């Protein structure tokens, strides 16, 4: 097969969907690879690196869209790209349905197959294809670094001749993959770390990283949805939770919020008054920004200052660590590709992973949620 790799066009995107190593593996598996010129630049990979790995460098993305059977990308196609892609080809990339729903008709028209990295099931077996995890982990890690950069205090405890500096207090809202990574790194940096999540199972995980878990008393499985993800919670719970967060937040120096509910806007956990109750000089890193943010005031991809509180809504943290982010992403993509195509029966819909990640199969809808969204659109 001919596999095409494109340069990402989004403003803040620095990642690339395949590393030279991955390309070597693809070529070993007797595929041929074409790659757009400069695709790796922002991840500090030169075209010659790609060439050495065996890829063909092409000047224009048109060539790639025309020739490739399968296209590897980080982000889904924009309008322009969607125009260019050849009918019947397969796209492997992140794909949040709620954000892309407007383009779905065109994908269907062009009989595109979409293998969504966002929909790889979160099973033990699929973990090496789980790009959500690998990128969330980066985001969580990086959030603590920029948090430490934003505040005008030390993270660790320090007893010096000029007095004792108290350790910074960090609160993590939502202890999924990103949240756990943030906890781990904030602990490492010496801060006092607190965490909160709706799913009670997370308590043990938080404590396994040495942080304190803040609990809302409630029916124990309130926030547990399908497949280990969170679901929306009751009003009563929301009130208790708001109360708890409100109390806790006052003392915090950094808040890293990662609370997400799949295919839904992010829950608002921090409102304006709560922000204003924080100590001047504190920072909020809102990793849920792209889904609306966990903080009312968050502006996606902007760093704002509200009454001396910094609210960082950058959604592209993985891109700021493009070298590692690209490496992990490209391995995830390759593993998925390999899982699906490296057997006698490619696109075996019996297979949980293949079936789960396949949103469109040559233009045919292969996903319940997607179908729901389409039905909703049509009404």
């Amino acid at each position, binding site marked *: 097969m001919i596999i095409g790799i494109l340069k990402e066009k989004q403003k803040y995107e620095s990642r690339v969907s395949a590393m030279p190593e991955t390309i070597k593996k693809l070529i070993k598996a007797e595929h041929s690879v074409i790659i757009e010129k400069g695709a790796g630049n922002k991840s500090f990979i030169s075209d010659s690196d790609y060439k050495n790995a065996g890829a063909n460098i092409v000047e224009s993305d048109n060539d790639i869209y025309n020739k490739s059977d399968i296209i590897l990308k980080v982000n889904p196609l924009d309008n322009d790209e969607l125009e260019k892609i050849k009918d019947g080809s397969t796209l492997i990339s992140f794909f949040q349905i709620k954000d892309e729903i407007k383009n779905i008709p065109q994908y269907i028209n062009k009989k595109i197959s979409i293998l969504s990295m966002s929909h790889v099931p979160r099973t*033990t077996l699929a973990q*090496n294809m789980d790009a959500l995890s690998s990128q969330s982990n980066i985001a969580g890690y990086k959030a603590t670094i920029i948090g430490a950069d934003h505040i005008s205090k030390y993270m660790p405890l320090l007893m010096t001749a000029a007095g004792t500096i108290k350790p910074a207090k960090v609160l993590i809202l939502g202890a999924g*993959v990103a949240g*756990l990574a943030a906890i*781990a790194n904030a602990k490492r940096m010496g801060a006092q770390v607190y965490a909160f999540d709706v799913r009670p199972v997370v308590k043990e995980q938080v404590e*396994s990283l040495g942080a304190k878990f803040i609990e809302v008393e409630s029916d124990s499985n309130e926030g547990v949805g399908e497949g280990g993800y969170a679901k929306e919670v009751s009003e009563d719970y929301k009130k208790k939770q708001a109360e708890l967060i409100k109390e806790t937040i006052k003392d915090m120096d950094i808040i890293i919020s990662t609370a997400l509910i799949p295919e839904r806007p992010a829950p608002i956990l921090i409102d304006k008054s709560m922000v204003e109750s924080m100590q001047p000089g504190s920072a909020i890193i809102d990793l849920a920004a792209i889904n609306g943010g966990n903080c009312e005031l968050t502006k996606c991809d902007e760093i704002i200052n509200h009454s001396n509180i910094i609210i960082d809504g950058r959604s592209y943290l993985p891109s700021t660590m493009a070298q590692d982010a690209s490496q992990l992403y490209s391995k995830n993509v390759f593993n998925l590709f390999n899982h699906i195509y490296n057997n006698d029966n490619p696109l075996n819909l019996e297979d949980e992973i293949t079936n789960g990640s396949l949103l469109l199969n040559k233009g045919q809808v292969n996903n319940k949620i997607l179908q729901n969204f389409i039905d909703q659109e049509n009404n």
Partner: protein
Amino acid sequence: MIDLSYLISAICFIYGLKMLSHPKTARNGNIIASLGMLIAIIATVYLGTELDIKMIAIAMIIGSIIGAFFAIKVEMTQMPQLVAIFNGFGGGASALVATSEFLKYGHNSTMFLIISITLSVLIGTLTFTGSFIAFGKLQGLISTKPITFPGQQLLNGILAIIMLIAAYMIPNYGMDSFYTILILSGLLGILLVIPIGGADMPVVISLLNSYSGIAAAMTGFVLVNSEPSAGNALIICGSLVGASGMILTQIMCKGMNRSLVNVIFGAVGGEVEGSSGEGKEVNIKSYSTEEAAMIFDAAEKIIIVPGYGLAVAQAQHAVREVAEFLEDKGKQVLYAIHPVAGRMPGHMNVLLAEANISYEQLKDLDEINPEFEDCDVAVVLGANDVVNPAARSDQSSPIYGMPILNVDKARTVIINKRTMNTGFAGVQNELFGYDNSIMVFGDAKDMLIQLLSDLKEL
């Protein structure tokens, strides 16, 4: 001269026993003890009063052949019952000697002699029959379940009282009293052992072993008048074995977390086999940390496999301490980090870095998997899914296809977790039942701390 020989043989026994209780000297200890025995026998036969050497030789040869035959033939797994039966013969011998002494003196003996003979016969016979029951239980000839019936203890008490009376009556009734004691002791031996469960058998055997020592000592008291030096020898060696056996029994009880009283009267020793909860039954071996420590002590290359449970237990420091101790002993210790161990990417790295375990010791899946084959011990600490062989072999398993750490390739796998519960993926792990697997249950931190102190005590 004969006295001196006995003294020397006694010293041999003392030293032998002392050495037997240390792993490194144990084998030599056994040899020294057997040397002591040889000296004692030779002294008795050649230096003693005139004896019918031919007859003795025949008896000794018969006994030796029987003993040697079983000692060589029997399978390793049947050792305990063999010890039980040998022990029974020892007790029997004492009882027989006492009997023949009784026949010699009749009922006209001194008080002291009567007491000695009674005790010797009582304990010897009890040991004899009790050992056979123990043998039967271990060999599966008799149900390993505790066999109990109402009034059991009462019956034992009555038997004891009858024997007491019979002993008191010896001067009057002579042989009749004696036979009563003989028979009732045999019965008592059976009754005492039958209610004890299979799992407690080792303790019982040890106890019977101690009894046979005491029986020998009592025989010594019987003999001491007619054959003072032989009598003394029997007293020394018998009481030595009696006392050390008692201590050993107690140590064993403690090791099994049972009190001696509990074992003898409790009759509660059920099976301690673990069951795998749901699904397939796996047959697991549960070890104490002390036993695990012995295994580590003998190992040279050790691979530690941390999992989510290690993080839950916050045992990162404890594991480093154990590893450092082992390294100080010249062993090689590596950590095998499975890419998805824990609950977040790099969970184990964070954990182990916190304990300041150097990066060089951490090996990822591809690096470490070839190493398991020549590794003596793989220690799985709170990991489960990442070492589940089903991922390699069981196509129906939800984790089939995931690369795992091949811990089962190690000579011995020691697995620590709290229960037989499943891990994140919710699938059974047949590794736990493998022949080379050993489970050590408990919270990872507690277990490691215990292990360290046991290692230090070796």
